[in-house]
């Protein structure tokens, strides 16, 4: 009789396994063992509560759903959730206290060599790395919140870290207190949209070798060194805000060796340097707002064929600075609040060309101490004299059609 029961039970389980089933984990239970015993296609529902677990390895396509935001505490040991299968969903957890190691990059949620995974609506507190995607394609990271309390760059990890991925969507996440907010290396064709990163100790957004990615409607504020992007082609940055990144080495947006890219309708406000560009070619900077920055646009001599068009420069201490006496970039149609020309034919374009680089910014570039003389009478005098007969400032760095009104 007993044997028949066993057979029936086994048959029943096997039967349900064919179609997917829901498995419920309650406080006191182990998510890890349930995940191990689940089958592909299952839904593991974790009820509200506190679970002290780590190294939960998901190697089959299941959905791991938290109901009422259950907390998984990694008690500072290793990784917490590791995904090594396609089409996995992790949703609705509080994931806290991953391990820290100088050797391995422990993450609260790690996804390895997978496709079609979704990480959504999780809150990650006090982890080394937040969400770590390595070798993934077609995944979505949405509505997550990552906060940590990084103290130094060497002892902290990134909020959302992507390595060697493609077609990833990073949407509506909030990241604070990490080393870099969002970090991309060798990532292609991805979308970063509606995220907010603030008060991270290094960069709000940091990417390298990540061609063909789009960044839209993100907000990067008060990060240690702003946003840094390097060695990349075909970047689109639209409608982002880069604000209040202050400090000796802080930039709203640092561009290094970027080419064929597009920066459109962004706002740079209250940064030490709004945009700092080095070795940048064929970049279009169009319709952006530069407001109340120390240096709105620092464009180094090795930048070529860039177009700076229809931007608004208002309330910046220095509008454009460069370290070269030549210019191979094109400026047109920008609004400069320091422009003193006139518009006789009333076509909205100033009749006198405008040179946005002033002598004093060049002096400060060479001897930074002289910033002490900012707004002194002698400096105004020198600037006025230089404007009339340019000797030191690049003669071709000139906006021939400055706009009289702010550009929309």
């Amino acid at each position, binding site marked *: 009789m007993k044997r028949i029961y066993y057979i029936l039970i086994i048959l029943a389980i096997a039967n349900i396994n064919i179609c997917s089933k829901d498995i419920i984990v309650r406080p006191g239970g182990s998510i890890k063992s349930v995940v191990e015993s689940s089958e592909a296609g299952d839904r593991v529902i974790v009820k509200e509560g506190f679970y002290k677990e780590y190294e939960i390895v998901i190697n089959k396509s299941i959905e791991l759903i938290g109901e009422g935001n259950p907390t998984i505490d990694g008690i500072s040991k290793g990784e917490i959730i590791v995904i090594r299968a396609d089409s996995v969903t992790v949703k609705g957890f509080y994931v806290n206290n991953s391990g820290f190691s100088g050797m391995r990059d422990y993450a609260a949620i790690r996804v390895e060599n997978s496709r079609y995974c979704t990480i959504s609506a999780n809150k990650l507190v006090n982890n080394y790395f937040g969400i770590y995607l390595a070798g993934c394609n077609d995944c979505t990271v949405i509505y997550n919140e990552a906060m940590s309390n990084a103290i130094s760059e060497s002892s902290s990890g990134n909020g959302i870290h992507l390595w060697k991925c493609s077609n990833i969507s990073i949407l509506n996440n909030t990241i604070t207190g990490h080393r870099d907010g969002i970090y991309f290396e060798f990532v292609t064709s991805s979308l970063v949209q509606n995220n907010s990163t603030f008060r991270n100790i290094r960069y709000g957004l940091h990417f390298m070798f990540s061609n063909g990615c789009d960044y839209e409607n993100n907000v990067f504020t008060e990060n240690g060194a702003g946003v840094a992007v390097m060695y990349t082609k075909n970047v689109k940055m639209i409608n982002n805000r880069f604000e209040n990144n*202050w*400090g*000796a*080495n*802080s930039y709203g947006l640092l561009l290094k060796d970027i080419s064929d890219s597009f920066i459109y309708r962004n706002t740079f406000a*209250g*940064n*030490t340097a709004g945009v700092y560009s080095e070795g940048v070619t064929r970049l279009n900077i169009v319709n952006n707002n530069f407001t*109340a*920055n*120390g*240096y709105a646009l620092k464009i180094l001599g090795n930048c070529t064929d860039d177009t700076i068009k229809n931007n608004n420069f208002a*309330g910046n*201490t*220095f509008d454009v600075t460069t370290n070269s006496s030549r210019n191979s970039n094109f400026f047109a149609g920008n609004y400069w609040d320091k422009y003193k020309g006139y518009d006789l034919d009333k076509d909205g374009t100033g009749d006198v060309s405008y040179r946005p680089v002033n002598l004093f910014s060049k*002096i*400060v570039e*060479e*001897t*930074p*101490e*002289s*910033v*002490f*003389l*900012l*707004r*002194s*009478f*002698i*400096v*105004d*005098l020198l600037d006025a004299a230089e404007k009339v007969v340019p000797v030191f400032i690049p003669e071709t760095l000139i906006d021939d059609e400055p706009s009289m009104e702010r550009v929309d």
Partner: protein
Amino acid sequence: MTTLKILKYVLYDVLRSKMIIIYTVLLFLITFGIIYTGRDVSKAVISLLNVVLLVVPLISIIFGTIHFYNSKEFMEMLLAMPVKRKSIFWAEYAGLSIALSLGFIAGVGLPLLIYGGDLSSLYLIIAGVLLTFIFISLAFLASVLNKDKAKGIGMALVIWFYMAVIFDALVLLFYYMFSSYPLQKATIVISALNPVDLARILILLKLDISALMGYTGATLHNFFGSAFGVMFALGFLMIWAAGPTMLALRVFNRKNF
């Protein structure tokens, strides 16, 4: 007691003069005009910066010198009475400084206050008042050192020109010559050598903070942005007011009228 009595008379005399009324009205019109066209108080403070740093010292030192020579007969008359020289000098200095400061506060402070001034406008007013005291003190020094009125006014003008323009040009030259040395600390010392620069930094740090935050700016900002730095700046401005006054008083005490 006698000092206060003379002070009252000097104050009354100066406040009634046409010059101070013109000065106040001029400042008022400039400030009002700048705020009205710009419609932004913190931007207005930047524009007013040069007014405060150039016009206030100039008017103070010229008016101070002229006033001193003009009240020479009055002083000689008082000296014939049993009044201490010290009292006469202090009454003249305080009376003139207070009168011009009141003119400045009414001319610049009032419009700023009406349009909702912030912390930077407060610093602007404090700096303006201190500069008034400093340049009247320098005016008195120039006056007691020269018997001849024309020479005195000439000396006052040279002092103003040096403080407002030449000093900064020399500093710029200095920075260029020693650009390969670390000059961050030297900058703080240099700033203390000129009250106009000191006043400018004090106001600017409330305005252009982001620009000053380059790596030199950071030292400057850390220093002058701190409570100690503000105290340092205000302290040195007061020394700049007190120093020449004391010197002028010494000369005045031994002067043969």
